[in-house]
């Protein structure tokens, strides 16, 4: 602990030593020069391009999406427009981008048309990363699907990361020729690499996706932070235990929340399944899974399940499973941050 405090003091004092120049607040419209340069480039692109060339430039160079939203589809909320999403993805260190485009869909539409998240696709030597989670109803979660074609070098393969400082030794695998990224439309942050491949040059599933219009920008509503709970099992381990249990034969979404058993009981959820003899303040990871859940008593798989993983010893059990797309009570549950102590 002393060492931590010393480190914190070193960082704070080191940063606070920086002199701050006396500069005024830049007013709106003054700009830094870059927007004017971009506007000039855009004007040149418009001048040199006919309709076909203009579209190609849009899609391939200037970062403006060539996909056209379908006016017949209901608009979806997003804090970003298509052009901004492309600029965001171009900002990551992906490699050489020959073509890029974006569509706005719900997470449910993406999974139904493109299949589950397969971030290691095309690389048989990679290890599967398991399910990928989002919170809330997949049919209501809007995501930007960004398809990229070119020569793409991931940071690592298990799982794949882009945009970080590459490892000191090069990856032994060939580059991907295309990749699909999912960007959470409300906060405007990357969710995951949806898919990637070394065959073909473009993800064919992207062309089959619908494209919704954007409603008025929506601001994410932050929730008040809750006090952290001390656990010996972190979120990754809790998810891993749930996946490895085999209780779900397929997973399209998996999301953990940390709370006490008392908080879980207080929400009016399926508290009857709480194990007997467990203290109210015992931390528990409540894991919601959408996919195919195998009922403990046998029978047809159910569409979602909620599991409890003890935050102290990692013991896991299926609490409840049901039909429909998502356990709606899960969205109302609290979520503490975890203070991870020694492992189980």
């Amino acid at each position, binding site marked *: 602990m002393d*060492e*931590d405090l*010393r*480190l*914190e003091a*070193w*960082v*704070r004092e*080191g*940063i*606070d*030593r*920086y002199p*701050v*120049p006396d*500069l005024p*607040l*830049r007013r*709106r419209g003054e700009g*830094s020069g870059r927007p004017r340069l971009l506007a000039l480039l855009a004007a040149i692109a418009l001048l040199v391009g006919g309709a076909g060339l203009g579209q190609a430039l849009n899609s391939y160079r200037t970062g403006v999406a060539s996909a056209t939203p379908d006016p017949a589809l209901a608009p979806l909320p997003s804090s970003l427009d298509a052009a901004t999403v492309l600029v*965001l993805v171009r*900002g*990551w*260190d992906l490699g050489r981008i020959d073509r890029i485009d974006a569509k706005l869909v719900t997470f449910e539409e993406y999974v139904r048309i493109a299949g589950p998240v397969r971030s290691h696709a095309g690389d048989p030597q990679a290890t599967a990363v398991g399910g990928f989670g989002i919170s809330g109803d997949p049919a209501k979660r809007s995501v930007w699907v960004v398809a990229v074609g070119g020569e793409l070098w991931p940071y690592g393969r298990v799982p794949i990361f882009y*945009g*970080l*400082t*590459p490892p000191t030794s090069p990856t032994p695998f060939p580059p991907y020729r295309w990749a699909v990224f999912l960007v959470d439309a409300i*906060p405007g*942050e*990357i969710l995951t690499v949806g898919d990637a491949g070394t065959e073909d040059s473009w993800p064919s599933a992207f062309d089959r996706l619908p494209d919704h219009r954007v409603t008025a920008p929506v*601001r994410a509503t*932050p929730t008040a*932070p809750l006090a*952290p709970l001390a656990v010996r099992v*972190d*979120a*990754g381990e809790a998810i891993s235990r749930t996946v490895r249990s085999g209780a779900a034969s397929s997973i399209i979404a998996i999301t953990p929340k940390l709370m006490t058993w008392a908080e879980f009981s207080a929400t009016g959820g399926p508290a009857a399944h709480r194990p007997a003899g467990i203290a109210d303040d015992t931390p528990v990871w409540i894991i919601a899974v959408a996919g195919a859940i195998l009922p403990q008593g046998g029978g047809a798989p159910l569409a979602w399940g909620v599991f409890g993983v003890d935050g102290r010893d990692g013991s896991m059990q299926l609490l409840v499973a049901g039909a429909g797309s998502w356990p709606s009570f899960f969205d109302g549950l609290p979520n503490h*941050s*975890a203070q*991870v102590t020694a492992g189980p």
Partner: protein
Amino acid sequence: METIDLRWERLYAEWRAPLYRAAVVLVGPAEGEEVVQDAFERGMRTEHFFDEVREPFPWLRQVVVRLALSRLRRRALWERARLLLDGHQASAYPDIAWALRRLAPTQRGAVVLRYYFRADYAEIAETLGLSQASVAKTLARAKAALRRDLT
């Protein structure tokens, strides 16, 4: 009643120094100022900002760190080359900047948010697009690297 412009001027006067210092250790002095100005400009362009954002400083520091990391990631190759050139030689910057520059962009952001701004794990996770468990791991790795430079 205070005008919107005056409120921004007052915010700028109050919070520019810590935001500028954080931006400088993340991206260097040349771009640090631009990052801070861009963050304020983004706020000023947001309609009803003061109605929707009750605490502007956490909002501003989140935007500053995100903008800085975005720039860092774009120039990752240049950073690596510069590190090779710098080696372990003394830097013209204070030691903290030299030590932070040796970290991956996400680690830098996590360290500045946690140790300089004293942000909690939830805010760090939201800012960096990580889970809270990943934040703990990122910070642990960053601390291990910084400890090597401290000793």
